């Protein structure tokens, strides 16, 4: 018995084509795949059913020359069944197209769940990283602020000490001068007068000193105010940045949620 190579090859080719089409994502191609695959399998049954022969009707041809009727009956059945299933599939493809505007096979639920979970984890990590960054920033700025305050306090202390030293020196000078005059035997009146004059002069210098102290104090005050303003500004900026970071984080989350809802919404899915 010879093997009918050509029909076997043809059915193999049809089956291979059918399987390839079946693996496509578009349902119309899948439908074509089902039809081609069905034909390939039917051809295989006919070929496998034995050699070609006369019609299997009693009295028409000798019994030995008849073809085997059984595979033909089976193939007829299979063809009818394939026809029915093809009609059903076609209706389903059409319905799918009506509902989603696409004829592509959609991802299944588990795939979607896995993808959503992965995206959730990713987003969570991003938010955490941002929060950590922000925390580090706040800590650094707080440390800078504390350092600056400590520096200023130290400077103020030094300046005050300097001022006190100068005032003490002026008092000492005045005392020394008075003592000196008394020792030189200057009368009390004169002393008084001189003191008066000196006082006037010293008053001038004292005033001068006082003015200088006042100036120093003023400058001091000014510097303190500046410092305070700068500090305030810094705090304001800090708060602003903090708010900004929070806002961004919230917006990112909102956008992500909206995207997820869109992905989950079966009504819109096809349009994506």
């Amino acid at each position, binding site marked *: 018995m010879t093997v009918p190579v050509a029909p076997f090859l043809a059915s193999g080719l049809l*089956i291979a084509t*059918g399987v390839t089409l*079946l693996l496509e994502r578009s*349902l119309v191609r*899948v439908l074509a795949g*089902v039809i081609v*695959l*069905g034909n390939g*399998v*039917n051809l*295989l*049954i006919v*070929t*496998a*059913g*034995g050699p070609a022969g006369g019609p299997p009707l009693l009295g028409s041809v000798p019994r030995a020359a008849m073809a085997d009727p*059984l*595979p033909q009956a*089976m193939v007829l*059945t*299979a063809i009818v*069944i394939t026809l*029915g*299933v093809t009609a*059903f*599939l076609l209706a*389903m493809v059409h*319905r*799918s197209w009506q*509902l*989603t505007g696409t004829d592509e*096979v*959609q991802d*299944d*639920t*588990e795939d*979607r769940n896995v993808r*959503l979970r992965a995206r959730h984890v990713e987003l969570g990590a991003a938010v955490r990283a941002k929060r950590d960054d922000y925390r580090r920033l706040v800590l650094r700025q707080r440390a800078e602020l504390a350092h600056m305050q400590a520096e200023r306090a130290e400077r103020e202390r030094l300046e005050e000490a300097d001022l006190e030293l100068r005032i003490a020196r002026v008092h000492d000078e005045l005392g020394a001068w008075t003592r000196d005059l008394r020792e030189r035997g200057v009368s009390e009146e004169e002393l008084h007068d001189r003191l008066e004059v000196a006082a006037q002069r010293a008053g001038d210098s004292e005033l001068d000193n006082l003015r200088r102290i006042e100036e120093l104090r003023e400058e001091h005050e000014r510097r303190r105010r500046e410092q305070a303003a700068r500090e305030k500004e810094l705090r304001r900026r800090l708060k602003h940045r903090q708010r900004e970071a929070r806002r961004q984080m919230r917006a990112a989350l909102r956008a992500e949620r909206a995207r997820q*809802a869109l992905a*989950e*919404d*079966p009504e819109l899915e096809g349009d994506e």
Partner: protein
Amino acid sequence: MCVPVLAPLLAAGLKLAIGGRLRHLQALISLVTLGVSLAVSVALLVAADRGGPLVTELGGWPAPIGICLVADRLSTLVLVASSAVTFCVMVYSVASAYAEQEHDAPMAIFHPAFLVMMAGVADAFLSGDLFNLFVAFELLLSGSYVLLTFGGTESRILAGATYTLMALASSMLFLVALAVAYAATGTLSMAQLAERFPALPPQVALLVELTLLLAFAIKAAIFPVAMWLPDSYPTAPAPATAVFAGLLTKVGVYSIIRLEALLFPGGPVATLLMLVGLATLLIGVLGAVAQTDIKRMLSFTLVSHIGYMVFGVALSTVAGLAGAVFYVVHHMTVQTSLFLVTGLIERRTGTTSVNRLGGLATAAPVVAVLFFVPAMNLAGIPPLSGFLGKLLLVQAGLAAGGPLALTLVAGGLVTSLLTLYAVAKVWGKAFWREPREAVTRGGAVVESEEGTGQEAVVTTAAMPVALVGSTAALVALALAYTVLAGPMSAFAERTAGELLARRPYLAAVLGGTP
């Protein structure tokens, strides 16, 4: 013997002719048809048990040439179990149609499709011919396509695409295997094939066996080709999902039992079956543990527990096959009742997500009991039938010995434990914790959860007696398996003995001494 096949087909035609009118008559036809099928199945069971396999030659052609229907113990047992389950599901579906005032669609489309599917299931169980088995598969599949995509909503079309294409791929594989088997042996009668396969070169026989096994494994949802199931079943209407879960995968398992016991006894495939059985058990149940939706969780346990039956078949001992047969019957009933209860939960609360459920134990105590009993049964708590089925399989595994069988026994026990964990999680969240939202109130419109693609449903606190009653009947049937455990396991053992002996089947079909 043709009654379980022909009656539903005729009834389906009649109902299509009647159309949407005469609702009471429609309901009556459905129920009477399935009731008659059940009664005939029981009669067949008794006859097959007393007098050996019964054979009907269709069209008057003698057995090896024409197509015949064979009713042996295995066929009739699964037929009785499936008819009983289907009858309850039909009552549920009729009650739900009456309760929801859906006027034409359920009776005019749902019922005919359901009946065609039932005819296919009965034909598959009784078929004595591989090509007729193919036709039976197509019959039940075409019914199930309609049921699964019922209403044509988006989620159902999406699920339908997955389901239909997987079923088609399996059918094409089946056809290829048929072509090769016919070319090699010149027959497709199962009895004749069983006689002729040993004469073939072992490679050819193995090729045919593996192709058929793959085709049946897709139908039975065994591990590497199981993932279509949790994606397609949960979206269908509750009665459809229930009957799919109960029957369709079992048709695949039944075919594998026939394939391994009748056509290729003692082949090298047993080791492969053990491995895929183990993978199915563990991977399925791990999937179940991860789910938050009750229907999806149940779908994964469905896949997982197919592994037990594969294990029993792979042992190919009397004890193993008896365990597998017992488990098939138990699992049909329990899985169906669980899906029906889930339908009740959905009806009551509008959702099946455990994250949104709560407080059902006080809000709907009857539903709670109806969920708790089969859930514990599924997990295998003594003395329920799930425990008995697992016990039979574990005993068979220990008796068979060997590292692989012992690993499977361990895997089976772990699966049982994890199943308990999965159902207890659902129980704790949906039933025992504080009520959530307003789902416990009747009459509320519950929006669908994002991403599930389901429509908003109106919940109702009213539970028609027939709805609860049909579910309760199934739960009670599973409890009856415990009461009748002695006779049932004895029958399962007789079935396994008959399967392994092969002689009675071959003699009944081909003639000769049993």
